[in-house]
């Protein structure tokens, strides 16, 4: 039935999970950019942000050598020992075993995108095979994309069944479910898709904004919609789902604004890299730059830091 009437299916879903007040969300997040975070609290936030980075390289030109450099950077972002390690490196499945070699003895995890990233347009069997292969190669975390086509067609059960199948294929690996918000188009859809995903994943699994491969990525707005979905889901069920905005977060200032959103929406319990991550490459160097600025008092030139992943 719903296959033929996606709007009716969506309308029922919106009734169930509640609508999003678009203007309210925009107003709310605009306020986050006015918070004044200085000195010690700024430094604390910057270090927290570093520890939450999923240092990412997802290029066709990735090589084992580039992955090795990325891992070294993840293990020791800066020569200053106060700077923590990042949370994880995020790579394509074929690079998992190369990354694992370098970070196996550390707390840095290996995350792998899978399920025909970024489009997800492959048969389910192929996508599940990719997940199993990545886990077998040593991936600690799997970043999957949802079936946006199924969602927009109102085939929610299909979308959820696929996520559930990936959950099983993950085994012990943490799952991050990419909603690809730019293709969901509205805040209502983002909230609805968040709920559908959260109902089939496990405590500690993530929902994630985007692949970083489309024009619109993580914004404070869609981050806020997803954080509020996580909050409402937690209050309903007691299950704590984690969150990962990805793509488009390039500056330390932005990262701090996202952390403010987390603190003011979900509270301190989510201010840990178990429950919040940044999918980013160039962000790390800007964080390091600002940390060094706090230490020395002088604005830093970007070329004083080891190559950022975006130049790979």
């Amino acid at each position: 039935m719903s296959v033929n009437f996606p709007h009716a299916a969506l309308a029922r879903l919106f009734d169930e999970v509640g609508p999003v007040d678009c203007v309210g969300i925009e107003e709310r997040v605009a306020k986050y950019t006015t918070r004044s975070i200085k000195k010690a609290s700024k430094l604390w936030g910057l270090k927290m942000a570093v520890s939450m980075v999923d240092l990412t390289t997802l290029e066709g030109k990735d090589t084992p050598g580039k992955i090795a450099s990325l891992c070294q950077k993840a293990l020791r972002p800066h020569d200053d020992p106060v700077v923590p390690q990042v949370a994880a490196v995020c790579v394509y499945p074929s690079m998992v075993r190369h990354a694992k070699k370098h970070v196996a003895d550390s707390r840095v995890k290996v995350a792998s995108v899978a399920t025909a990233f970024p489009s997800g347009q492959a048969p389910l069997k192929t996508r599940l095979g990719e997940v199993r292969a990545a886990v077998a190669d040593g991936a600690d975390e799997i970043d999957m994309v949802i079936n946006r086509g199924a969602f927009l067609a109102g085939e929610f059960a299909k979308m959820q069944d696929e996520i559930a199948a990936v959950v099983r294929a993950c085994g012990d690996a943490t799952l991050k479910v990419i909603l690809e918000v730019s293709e969901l188009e509205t805040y209502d859809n983002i909230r609805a898709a968040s709920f559908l995903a959260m109902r089939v994943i496990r405590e500690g699994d993530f929902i994630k904004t985007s692949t970083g491969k489309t024009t619109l990525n993580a914004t404070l707005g869609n981050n806020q919609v997803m954080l509020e979905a996580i909050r409402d889901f937690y209050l309903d069920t007691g299950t704590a789902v984690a969150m990962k905005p990805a793509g488009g977060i390039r500056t330390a200032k932005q990262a701090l604004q996202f952390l403010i959103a987390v603190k003011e929406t979900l509270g301190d319990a989510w201010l840990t890299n178990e429950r919040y991550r940044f999918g980013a490459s160039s962000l790390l160097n800007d964080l390091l730059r600002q940390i060094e600025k706090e230490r020395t008092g002088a604005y830093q030139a970007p070329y004083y830091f080891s190559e950022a992943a975006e130049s790979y």
Partner: protein
Amino acid sequence: MSRLPITKTPKVYVGGAFIRSESARVFPLADAAGHFFANVPQCTRKDLRNAVEAAAKAGPGWARRTAYNRGQILYRLGEMLEARREELIGTLVHFGAKKSAAAKDVDVSTDRLIYYAGWADKYEQVLGNVNPVASPHFNFTVTEPMGVIGVLAPNTPPLLGLVSLIAPAIVSGNTVVALASEKFPYPAILLGEMLATSDLPGGVVNLLTGFRQELVPTFATHTHLRAIVGVANAEERRQLKLGAAESIKRTHLQKAEDAIDWFAATAQSLYAIRDTLEFKTTWHPIGA
């Protein structure tokens, strides 16, 4: 019917856009008669940081332009000054300059731009070299722009002082963050409007207005600035040299307490271009 007065909000030219200070601070500017004229942006070290980011972004593209093209664009800037000559003179007079002195300030500024425009595709021939070496090698010395240059303009002459410092820095492909005269900032606001219409890519010249006391320390310590050129008093020179030593940048500072004749022929020179160049020497084996 009497018209309502249309007063202007002066804004600074940074990154190819006209902006207010991020702090939203302004300071009042009075004309020669002591009447309120306008509120001018009182830029902060964060504005300076943003301007440096803008200059760094514009740098590679500007340096990649052909020398000929950079010369054309500097010439075009001269054309813009010439076209708005009367307005510039009127402004300088409004702030207390004599008519003849104001005209001289504007005309020499324009000529100075044309002078450096001419050097654009010629300085390399003079400053670069093929060096004689006692081995079968060609040995070249070529120049390269340094990157982002900080400029500290003198209080007077308000226009010529600024132009004389900016032009030799940008002609070789550097980009500039300049602090305008603290006492007479308005000509720099107008210069920004001319820069915007001169084919100069946004971010190549960034003009700030504000207080030297607030901004000089950041000019000194910012590691992304490769050199500081301009005029400074004894205390500022001390700060700048200490900061420059820490951040490894060059300083070419003239003493504010000296009487500098900006109108003299000696105030424009190939060596002013050289001040913001690095030299690279290359050995190349001579083939059989």
